[in-house]
């Protein structure tokens, strides 16, 4: 008779389900061990996002305050929202005797950025990259407009070896 075995099997499988969820409940109720909730404003110091998180566009600077940006403006052209503005200038290189373009300000409007990543894909030098900072809250919209190249920074002297 499948009627009675249905009842028994049904009850058994329901109890197995309840055992699994019950384990979740009691473990988390007593120890809070597996709780995955981030208590956002409280744990700001310890909360780190994973590497692929798209928090904001940053420019890489090495320890000598040098970056890789040569002001090619490809990122500015790639950006669909116009969130990137590049102010550049030329100066004479005494060694080669040529005018070399260098960056004055790499202006990044975070308030307009949709984190699409097209600028980072477009960059031939890998000068800009994703930062994992997500805590952008400000009371003034102007504070979201950032200059990515640090003051006094220079372009890195290109080495021949590939990255």
């Amino acid at each position, binding site marked *: 008779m499948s009627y009675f075995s249905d*009842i028994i099997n049904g009850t058994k499988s*329901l109890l197995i*389900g*309840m055992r*699994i*969820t*019950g384990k*979740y*409940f009691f473990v*988390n*109720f007593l120890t*809070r061990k*597996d*709780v*995955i*909730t981030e*208590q956002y404003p409280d744990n700001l110091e310890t909360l780190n996002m994973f590497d692929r998180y798209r928090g904001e566009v940053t420019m890489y600077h090495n320890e000598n305050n040098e970056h890789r940006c040569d002001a090619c403006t490809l990122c500015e052209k790639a950006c669909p929202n116009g969130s990137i503005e590049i102010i550049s200038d030329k100066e004479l290189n005494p060694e080669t005797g040529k005018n070399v373009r260098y960056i004055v300000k790499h202006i990044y409007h975070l308030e307009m950025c949709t984190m699409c990543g097209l600028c980072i894909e477009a960059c031939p030098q890998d000068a800009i990259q994703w930062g994992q900072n997500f805590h952008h809250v400000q009371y003034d919209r102007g504070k979201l407009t950032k200059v990515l190249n640090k003051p006094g920074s220079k372009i890195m002297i290109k080495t021949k070896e590939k990255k």
Partner: protein
Amino acid sequence: MILNIFTDIHNLLLGLMSAKAVHITELVLIGVAYLGIFAVLGLFLVWLERRVAGFFQLRLGPNRVGPSGLFQTIADALKLVSKELTGTVKADKQLYKIAPYFVITTALMAMALIPFSQEIQAFDINIGVFFLISVSSIGVLGIFLAGWSSNNKYSLIGGMRTGIQMISYELSVGMAVVTMVVLAGTLQISEIVELQKSGWFIFTGHIPAIIAFMIFMIAGTAESNRVPFDLVEAESELGAGFHTEYSGMRFAYYFLAEFVNMFIIASIAVVLFFGGWLSPFGITDAIPFAGLFWFTVKVIAVIFIFMWFRWTFPRFRIDQLLTLEWKYLLPINMVNIVLMALMVWLGLTF
């Protein structure tokens, strides 16, 4: 001791006015007290549900407003009070407005019979269990009216499903209760509790009592429209079901009544199977207020099982719902009543 407080208040009122006026005043006072209990209980259970759900899903649940988020639901209720009461243009206005009160009133009427402790029971009649069952089925009318009067297809489908579900599962609840009444031999709630001083019915009635308890829990879940029997308000299919068109406080009435109904079902289970306000083995019989404590603990334990169901089982399809009732629960229940009667007749109960 708590009885003394009640008699003190009674004597105080007698000193102020005539006996008839005292009677009416006391009725009003008790009514207001029960309204207060209703609101506090509803809010507490909503908080409990959300908190328990959080732990089941590896979350924390509400934990910001007050200690452990205890005041979260009060904040929610305040928000709902301040909301506009909307309705559809072609709704049946009168029915639409009175429908929530059906649910509230019946929940309150059923609550009057619940023995919170030996002394605290507003209304102890000799057909108590019968009254509880009949009153709790009137509450369906409120849901049904809401579904009909909203003039919305989702509401209507939700209301119709309520009808189907209630007609089916009312039977199972009733028969599971009847099984225990066979064992108790009385319908009066205070007497049923008294009889369990020698042992809770779930132990004295052993096999048929346990089967009756399981059926009662299943059918009780269906009675209070909770998952896995929440076809009435199936969010993924019907919007919000019968209360799709309700907003503000009218919605809150339904919401609170749903949780209070769960409390009532759990209380009936506790009274019939776990000895109501009695302490286990009579360990705290001498302490005042102990009855209230044990009753609360037991009811919350049963409510926790309902919540456990909710966060474990997926929703039924409507034909599965009816198959479960008419092909499984009802025949088992009928056999179970006969079994219980035989046991009582042969003296096989403890």
